[in-house]
């Protein structure tokens, strides 16, 4: 879509000027300052094993100018990831599989102009991308929107204790795509 805009200033003065620009379909994503995952790190501390943690909210700011809508797909970055990291010597036996340990639940967007979308039901995160919104309920809003994705961990009961200086860290991708 292209538009040509002439500024009011140029119309009012004798200087002939024209500001010409085109606006393609555009989308952006930003880690918001709110929620429990500032900077993208959702730190669950030392959760009880075998129980689901309380959710931490990753607060995102999305902008879109596409009334066709957008989707946010969540997945594990690497299902074979070595999840124990830190300053210790990593013990290979501690590398638990991250599959099935994480759940995500979206919410309808707030802000923007247009449909806020319908969040999909709570999903267990795998290596396959899953939409935060239902297929029929992707947000059609344009402008700046806030999206809150609630994340929980379900550490299995047999998760080995970390060595001193180590922690478990699971990489999780949220991919924004214009529909």
């Amino acid at each position: 879509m292209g538009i040509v805009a002439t500024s009011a200033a140029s119309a009012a003065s004798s200087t002939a000027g024209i500001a010409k620009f085109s606006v393609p379909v555009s989308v952006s994503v930003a880690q918001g300052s709110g929620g429990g995952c500032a900077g993208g790190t959702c730190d669950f501390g030392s959760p009880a094993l075998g129980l689901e943690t309380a959710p931490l909210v990753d607060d995102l700011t999305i902008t879109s100018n596409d009334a066709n809508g957008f989707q946010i797909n969540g997945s594990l970055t690497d299902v074979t990831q070595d999840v124990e990291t830190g300053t210790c010597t990593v013990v290979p036996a501690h590398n638990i599989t991250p599959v099935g340990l994480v759940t995500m639940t979206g919410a309808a967007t707030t802000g923007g102009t247009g449909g806020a979308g319908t969040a999909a039901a709570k999903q267990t995160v795998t290596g396959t991308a899953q939409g935060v919104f239902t297929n029929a309920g992707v947000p059609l809003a344009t402008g700046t929107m806030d999206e809150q994705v609630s994340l929980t961990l379900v550490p299995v009961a047999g998760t080995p204790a970390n060595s001193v200086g180590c922690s478990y860290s699971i990489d999780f991708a949220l991919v924004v795509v214009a529909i």
Partner: protein
Amino acid sequence: MRRALFGLGVAVAATFALPSSVAAADSPYAAVEVAPARVELAVADGRPITRQFTVANLSSSPEVVTIQQTDFTVVNNAYQILPIKATPWSISNGLTLSATTLSLKAKGQVQVDLTYTPLSQTAVRAGALLFTPTVIPAGPTGGMALVVKLQVMVPVLAVPSGSDGKLDSRVQLSGRTGPLELLSALAIGGVSFQEPGTIQARSKWINTGNAIGRWDVWTTWTNLGHDYAQVESPPAVSMPGQTVSVTADTALDVNHHGRVELTPTFGIITVHATGQLILLGQASNQVNTRDQLVIVAPWRALGVLLVVLAFAWWVIRRRTMPHRERSVHPR
């Protein structure tokens, strides 16, 4: 869902929303804007095609944005990211970027050239670019943590075309429809029955061509010959041979002010959907689902009323009918 009535307004709003929205997204953390968010390249001959991306750092911190080529497929309407050269239709061998690691100052932006040297002038090639912004995150303090990596995915398609920009004749853009189901109604025989309220319809669409496309589906609800709701669903991406489901309903979303139901209390309603595959701005022939009939009425209330009336009739009949005297026959 996009409503026909609001389509123009939304389009106008979309045109002018971007500059203010960009200013509004202010975060010290990872934040990236990419334009265009979708690329379809018309391949008319073997000459390279160049497009420019604008990549902006919306963060108030400097950040590094990496651009990674990937392939993709589509599963359940969701793009599944695959390694490059994972698909037979991969575009990756033909794509080059002027830069893949961008160091952006706070609120900075750069242009990146994408050049495609055609691999095929007869078949559609597809892939995607993943834009990943990185600001050094706070590390976990111990225990267990999730590290969320934000990304923007930009699908890139190269589509054979003539010099006029229209689809090459070897690109077949065609589809057919599966059944249309009324999810909210009770079907008995060929007729469905429903209480007043939202009528939810699900239609299935099969890509029978040889190219990826986006289904543009409109669902229409007609009461006694008069259309009272028409909904355009979000596009559904479909690979050749794939079936996608599209749902739509009659509740109008009033921009964060709740939903308004358009279905009347009583109605003899037909529902149908029409769809077209879209690629390179061109559409396939339109395909239509069969009409589904649904009769809307407050069936529960009518049932209760019927029971009450039947009881009342029975009581009245009992009181108005003469009592039979018990006859005694002498022995």
